[in-house]
Each structure stands twice: as structure tokens, then as C-alpha cells.
């Protein structure tokens, strides 16, 4: 709740310049009716600012679980996660929400746009949460939608858009607060080959333009190919 108080001290400047996030010995298990299910045993890796990292691995290997941890949507069972110089493992819910809103943009496989709301309104939501005044919000949402080639569909609602178009709206929304990190969980999983390529082109181009790092979970070798680095998850460990 104390979102207006300053975030904890940033890490030393040396680390801040190049390193965006660092995951160290992160574990995650779930309890399902009394039985413990270990999903992540020991994940250790880092991502530099502006870097594009692909996470690959078999189905059920814990890629989505890891991405949720990176996105501060979930807490690790053990280990540490430093994002943008802040050790997030000890942060309260309010600060995690704020850090997430300011620093991280999401692109989901299922788009997760808000129904019955225009593209423009959808792109505006993170800015509402960030307290951006309404006029600036609308102008910026329009600009972002134009930059992903949807300047002519500002008032369309999600059900009036194709999958690829919806994902472009989601991309514009993810970019709306200039995050340092874009997390994408199989962003092309629900799209055909042509749309997939277009989305990936735009995702990578926009991220490069804005200096944002991208962590993308994917099954698609073509997507993984385009990353600066590939992290493979095998039996709950990063390789």
C-alpha cells in the first residue's frame, strides 16, 4: 500500500549500468494436497539491460513458473531475485506491484486484453495505474498503437480484432510505461506463422528502440534463434 514511498536503495552503480536482473539459486515448489511438487530446483542466471533472452525447455519444465517469478507475480520458495538493483524477495506486496507496473511489461500467450474495452482503453490501463493524466494517456496510447501499425483500429474492441492484432495491442500495452523488461510467455503460441513473425519483429524492434530487455519463453526454434542468448530449463535447473 505504501506505494508512494521511495523504493529501497539501488545497488552499486557498476551493477546498475549493465545488469538488469539477477536470479540466484531460486527454487519453487508447490504443495498439492499434502504432497510437495518441486518445479524449480536451482535457477541462476542474469539478464543485462537491452538483452534478449529466450527460455526454452520441455513442456512442464517450469518455464512459465520461472517467468511468473521474474514478473513478480509469484514469490520464489528460496533463493534471491534482484530486479533493477532491488532485492525483491523482501519487498512487500505494494512495492512489488509498483515495481511491476513501472519496470515490467507482459505479453501473454492468451493476450489477456480487457473485454468490452477499446484498444485505446486497453493500452491506457497501465498508465491509469501509473497516474498518468488522461490527455497524456490518450495521446500516448494512440502513438503506441500507431507504432505497432494499429492506428486505424483505436476504437476496436478485442473481439473485433484478429489474434495477431490483439497481440499487437497487448504489445503496445506492455510498452506503455517504458518498462526496462518485457516478459513474454509464448507470445506467438496462439498465432499462425506469418503473424508470429510479425509479432516477433515488432517485439524485438520496439524493445531495441526503447532499450528494453526481453525474456521470452518459447517452443519455437525460430523465435529462440533471434535471441541474444538462450537459457534452457532442464529438470528445474537452468543451463
Amino acid at each position, binding site marked *: *500500500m*505504501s*506505494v*508512494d514511498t521511495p523504493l529501497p536503495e539501488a545497488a552499486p552503480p557498476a551493477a546498475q549500468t549493465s545488469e538488469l536482473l539477477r536470479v540466484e539459486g531460486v527454487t519453487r515448489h508447490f504443495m498439492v494436497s499434502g504432497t510437495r511438487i518441486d518445479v524449480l530446483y536451482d535457477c541462476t542466471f542474469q539478464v543485462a539491460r537491452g538483452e534478449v533472452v529466450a527460455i526454452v525447455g520441455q513442456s512442464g519444465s517450469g518455464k512459465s513458473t520461472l517467468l511468473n517469478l521474474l514478473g513478480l507475480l509469484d514469490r520464489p520458495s528460496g533463493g534471491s531475485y534482484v530486479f533493477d538493483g532491488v532485492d525483491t524477495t523482501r519487498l512487500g506486496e505494494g512495492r512489488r*506491484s*509498483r515495481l511491476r*507496473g513501472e519496470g515490467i511489461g507482459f505479453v501473454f500467450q492468451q493476450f489477456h486484453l480487457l473485454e468490452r*474495452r477499446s484498444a485505446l482503453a486497453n493500452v491506457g490501463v497501465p498508465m491509469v*495505474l501509473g497516474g498518468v493524466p488522461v490527455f497524456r494517456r490518450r495521446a500516448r496510447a494512440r502513438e503506441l498503437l500507431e507504432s505497432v501499425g494499429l492506428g486505424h483500429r483505436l476504437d476496436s474492441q478485442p473481439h473485433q480484432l484478429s489474434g495477431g492484432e490483439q497481440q499487437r495491442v497487448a504489445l503496445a500495452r506492455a510498452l506503455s510505461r517504458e518498462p526496462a523488461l518485457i516478459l513474454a510467455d509464448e507470445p506467438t503460441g496462439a498465432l499462425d506463422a506469418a503473424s508470429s513473425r510479425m509479432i516477433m519483429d515488432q517485439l524485438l524492434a520496439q524493445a531495441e528502440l526503447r532499450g528494453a530487455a526481453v525474456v521470452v519463453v518459447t517452443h519455437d526454434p525460430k523465435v529462440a534463434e533471434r535471441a541474444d542468448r538462450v537459457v534452457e530449463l532442464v529438470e528445474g535447473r537452468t543451463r
Partner: protein
Amino acid sequence: MLRSLTAGIVLAFTGSRANIARTILSCAGVVVGVGALILVVTGSDFGQRYAVAYSEIQGGRAATLQVEINGDVTDRDALEEDLYRAGGEQVSLYQMPSGAVRVRSGGADVPDVEIRGVDPELGDIRRITMTRGRWFTEADRESLAPVLVVNESLAASMGDLTRVQIGTDRWVDARVVGVIADSGMDFTWQSAYLLRSPATEEILFAPPDSEEAPQEGFGFYGGSNAYVVRLDPDHPGVEDYGEGFSESLRTVAWRWGVEDPQNAIWSYRADSAEMLEEPLLYMTWGLLGIAFITLGTGLLGVLNVGLVTVRERRRELATYRALGASRFTLFVAVVMEAVVVSVVAGIVALAGCWALAALGSAVVTELDLVPPGVDLRVPPSGVLLGLGSAAAVGLLAGIIPAARALRASVVAGLRE
């Protein structure tokens, strides 16, 4: 904190606009409940104003006593002085003429006219609504012709108000200076107020003809002398329905020649608003209770819909969280949505009540069921209570779903 709050409110407004159908369905109970509340307050307010108007027209403003002194008064000036001394703030004669007074207009007799001799002060003691002309002034006392104010019924029978004559044994030209509204609440007699002045002294106070038998058995030997007297409502003389006032008059009755003051002097409370107020209050509370119960059922309706939609909207709420909404923001958003829904319902109810009141008002004034100036309308207190309780219902009905929404896991919500 502030940013989370405003963000929550913005989300709530866009959210409720996106869910209009659900909104309308969920608030039917609130519309009925709030409508019932507003109607009760409106009815009670109307009843109270009606009672006050009725009482002020028929009896007088609080607190008015009607005072009667039977028997011959030897010194009227001393009596009237004592009426003021005993606590009267305004005093007016309120007396039927001792003999039969006839009225005619343009030479034609107007039968069955009730005439009362009064002073200009009556205009301050009672609520008098002029439809034409004016009430008496002190200057009218100097008129050489008797001065009258008639009611509308009488004015209608008279036709030409410029050629009016009154008299007991001979006709005198009279001057009509104003017409007052019929009270409209009971059978309306043709009546006239006759200003007491040197010109009307004889008509009002002439000793009765010996043929007109004294009303034996009541101890009315001479005439009866009647007054209305307004006292401060807190004056001790008002207590016991005016008995205190009679008592203090009786002690000085010798000054104006009344011999058996115990039996000759009476006063009683003429204004009745206070007496009507208590039962009205009980009735209002009873009805308000019923209206609140109705509103309670409406609350359960909104709560139920709120719980269902929070479950349906887990994905949407999780998406908000992923986009940076804090728990507090979502809490505010969900509660505010319920408040917006309820207040909209309250406004709908208010509009309905307003229309009903306007219709009712038109009917009762058209049928002449209410005193002039008393209309049926939603009072500000009704608006306040209606919208306030609608907002309160929204708050109450929003809190439980909002708390539920907070507990839900973001990751699980996104997987739906």
C-alpha cells in the same frame, strides 16, 4: 496511496460502464428500497407540512389559544390589556356579531354568511392566503364604511364586490378589500371577516334583541366575547392546553366586570400541529423501518451479483494486477463499482419518486384536497437520505467481494 485510490476509482468507472447490463439487473432491489425510503420521507414531510398548514389556517401559529369570556364585559379595553399582560404577543378579536347580520350584493341578498369580527392582528396569528386584494391594515379602522375580507366562496356568490352592503336593521355600504382562499380542507362556508372599528362597533357589540332568547343552560347571559391570542410556545400559560392562561385571566376578571370567572372564562389550544406531529413521527419511523428492510434485500442482491462477478472476473482482476495494480487499488475499484451501481440505482429511484410526487401533487391540488401552498414534493432530506443510503448499500455490498478479489492468486487468475 492517493494514486492507488484514484486509479481504483478510474477503473471502477470504466468497469461499470463496460458492464451496464449486469449493473441494471443487479440494482432492481436497491431501486425499490431507496424508492420506498424516499417515498416515506416525502410522505412524512408532506404530512407534516399539511398538518402545520391546516393548523395554522384553522387554529393559528404555535401557540394560539382561543379565549372565551361569557357574560357582559364592562371594560373591553381593560380586558384586552389583560390578554396581553397574561402573555399574549398578538391578540385579535374573534367574535360573531351579537345579532343576525345580513349581507347583500348589488341589491340581492346573500344568505348563510358566517361573519366574524376581527382585528388586523389575526393576519399574524393565522396563515391567511389572499387570492385577491389584501388583508386589513390598521388604517382601515378609520374607514367610515365597514371593511370586509371575504372568502372565495362568498366572493363567488356575491359577484360584484364593489356593491356590497351589510346590516342588522338598516343597510350600510361596506368595502371589500380582499378575498382569501377557501381552506379547501372541509366543507367551505361562505364567510367574511369584518374589521372591528368605530364603524362596526354597533354591528358587533349591540345588545341582543330580547326576542333572541339567551342560550340558557350554558350560562350565556350577555354575549360571549371571543378572542384568539398567540403566545410564545414556551410560555407557561400554554400548558394544560391553555388552562394556565385562563387561570391568570380569572384573577383579574373583576377589572372588567365578570362576576363568576370560574365558569365564565375559558381558553383552549387552537393550533393542533404539535398534537398531530407525534403520531406522524411514529408512523414515519415504522414505515422507514420497512423501507430499510426492503433496502436490505436490495443489498443482498447487489452483494450476490458482486460475488458472482468477482469470480467471473478473476482473469480481468489478475490482468490488472499484472499491469501493476496494487491490492488496494483493486479493492477500491471493486468497492467503488458497487457504490457507482447503487448510486445509479438511487438516482433512478429518486427520479421515479420525483415523478410520482409531481403526479400526486397535481392530483391533490386539482381535487382541492390540500391547503394552498402545500404540495407533494421530494424534500432535500429525502434526496440526501435516498442517495446516502444507496451509497452506503454499495459500500457494504462491495466490501465482501472486494476482499475476495484481493485474496485470489494472480498466477491462477491469469491461467483461467
